[in-house]
């Protein structure tokens, strides 16, 4: 088994996929850092200050004014109201919700890449793990060895898990190093609030917890990693089922993008919450944003993702061990 994993790792490294992914992440982080920097500059110019309390107070008033418009949809209104209450809570307790620095940038980067960007990067590796063996004809060489088929697949899956862990780590390290050049490398100890409960009546702040940013980040990383793992497993399954890599990737891509679109409009279609792709934004629960569909909670999303994961695992292994290879 150990040998098999080593062998798979070697193939992974030889393909240089991780390097390509690191490059993509690096370029995007540079872009985001620049965009964020511009945003901060613009805000400062507009208000003539970089005092965060003034900026936050101004945002609160601006949001209040947007709420007074009667052309808002109900969900949008609720979202604005919750973000308003959160901001007010931060302000009342004198905590800067976005302490400038690389760790805050990392947090924002993670929260925004959890449902599309990181899964896409994972797909780059996962979607041809098995199907490429078919297209290159190496699958026969692999299966003629005196090793059980499930062991072969298992070694591939374990390699995938390690690769996903590495991708998440690369995203974290690169976003920290690159954004730090502009925003500075401090701010690990900055306080952040979590545990806001979104209820029908608005925001419940009785369970609010105060965390250091580094602890919060580690939790965020854990959630991002879990999402990446589930998406990776699903594309792994497709790679087993469909011999064409491009087709497998297309299916997965369609699912991910439909998830991003669905989350914006499914609030009235309740059973859509059992789709894996509307459950990807786990970090939103930590932060206290309202879920896309009423009744979704962290444990619900985790459970849904876990079931999809387990189903994908079962299908992959059953199909791969039974499949005729010719």
């Amino acid at each position, binding site marked *: 088994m150990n040998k098999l994993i080593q062998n798979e790792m070697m193939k992974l490294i030889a393909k240089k996929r991780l390097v390509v992914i690191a490059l993509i992440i690096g370029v995007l982080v540079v872009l985001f850092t620049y965009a964020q920097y511009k945003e901060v500059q613009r805000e400062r110019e507009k208000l003539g200050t970089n005092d965060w309390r003034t900026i936050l107070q101004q945002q609160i008033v601006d949001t209040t*004014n947007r709420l007074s418009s009667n052309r808002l949809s109900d969900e949008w209104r609720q979202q604005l109201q919750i973000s308003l209450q959160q901001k007010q809570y931060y302000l009342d*307790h004198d905590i800067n919700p976005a302490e400038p620095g690389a760790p805050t940038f990392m947090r924002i980067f993670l929260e925004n890449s959890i449902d599309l960007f990181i899964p896409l990067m994972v797909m780059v590796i996962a979607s041809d793990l098995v199907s490429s063996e078919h297209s290159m004809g190496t699958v026969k060489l692999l299966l003629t060895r005196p090793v059980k088929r499930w062991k072969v697949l298992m070694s591939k899956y374990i390699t995938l898990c390690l690769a996903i862990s590495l991708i998440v780590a690369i995203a974290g390290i690169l976003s920290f190093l690159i954004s730090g050049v502009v925003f500075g490398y401090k701010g690990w100890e900055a306080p952040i609030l979590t545990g806001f409960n979104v209820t029908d009546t608005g925001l419940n702040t009785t369970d609010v917890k105060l965390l250091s940013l580094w602890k919060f980040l*580690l939790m965020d990383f854990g959630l991002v990693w879990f999402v990446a793992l589930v998406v990776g497993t699903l594309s792994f399954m497709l790679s087993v089922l469909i011999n064409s890599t491009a087709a497998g990737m297309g299916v997965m891509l369609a699912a991910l993008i439909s998830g991003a679109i669905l989350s914006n409009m499914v609030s009235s279609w309740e059973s859509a919450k059992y789709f894996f792709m509307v459950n990807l934004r786990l970090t939103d629960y930590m932060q206290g944003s309202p879920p896309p569909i009423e009744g979704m909670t962290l444990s619900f999303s985790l459970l849904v993702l876990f079931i999809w994961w387990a189903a994908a695992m079962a299908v992959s292994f059953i199909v791969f061990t039974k499949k005729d290879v010719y």
Partner: protein
Amino acid sequence: MSKNYVRLVTIIGVVFFLLWLGGLGWAVGNYYAGKPESPPQTSPQDKAVDNKKGLTITAIGDSLTRGTGDETGKGYVGVLVDELKEKTKQTVQLTNLGINGQTSDQLRQQVQQSEVGRQIQKADIVLVTIGGNDLFRGGQGLMDFDSDNITAIEKKYLDNLNFILQQIRKNNQEATVFFVGLYNPFIEMDQGKEMSKIVRHWNYDSAEVSAGFPKVVFVPTFDLFELNVNDYLYTDKFHPNTKGYRLIAERVASLVTW
């Protein structure tokens, strides 16, 4: 490719695997079992005003402060700031805390917030518009303005105004406060004359309350909108348009000294 390199990458992968797994477990554990811990209350002196340069303006009030109806989005506050920037050659920092539809009751609540207090504290000039929504109630005031009702509303409003100005003075003894009075947007309507009478009376009482405080200047706008009111009103026939806001801004600008 050396075997050691492959092994190294594998080991790093395993380390991060365990780290992220731990993070996931911690996140779930903390989310469900973590003890609520409310953030420490901060004392006001922690938030001392940073040393500033230039002129600082804080505007509070209703949609007039906000600039509703102005196509350029500036409102009288924005126009005023532009003019001051030109005249003083200093940097002017504006915090506009105006909220659409705000009544004197709501403003009374708003000025008690600690951050709003801090914004007032650091201001050189405080601009206030309030009362329009108390009196006109979005046009409904046009229908029923029997005098008993109006008297009750006005009494409450004057009490709120007194409180608001007190609160401003408590936070900042130095700043000049410009309190912008009401105009009558309904002056050309059927009952415009009666309404004007009420507005004049309202303004008079507001000016009286303002006079009770040092460095609070009541700025009348009634006369600005007395002739050709429709040229200066937005399509809702209630808020000023760009030209109307310019009139108000010019009047305030001529009063500002520094």
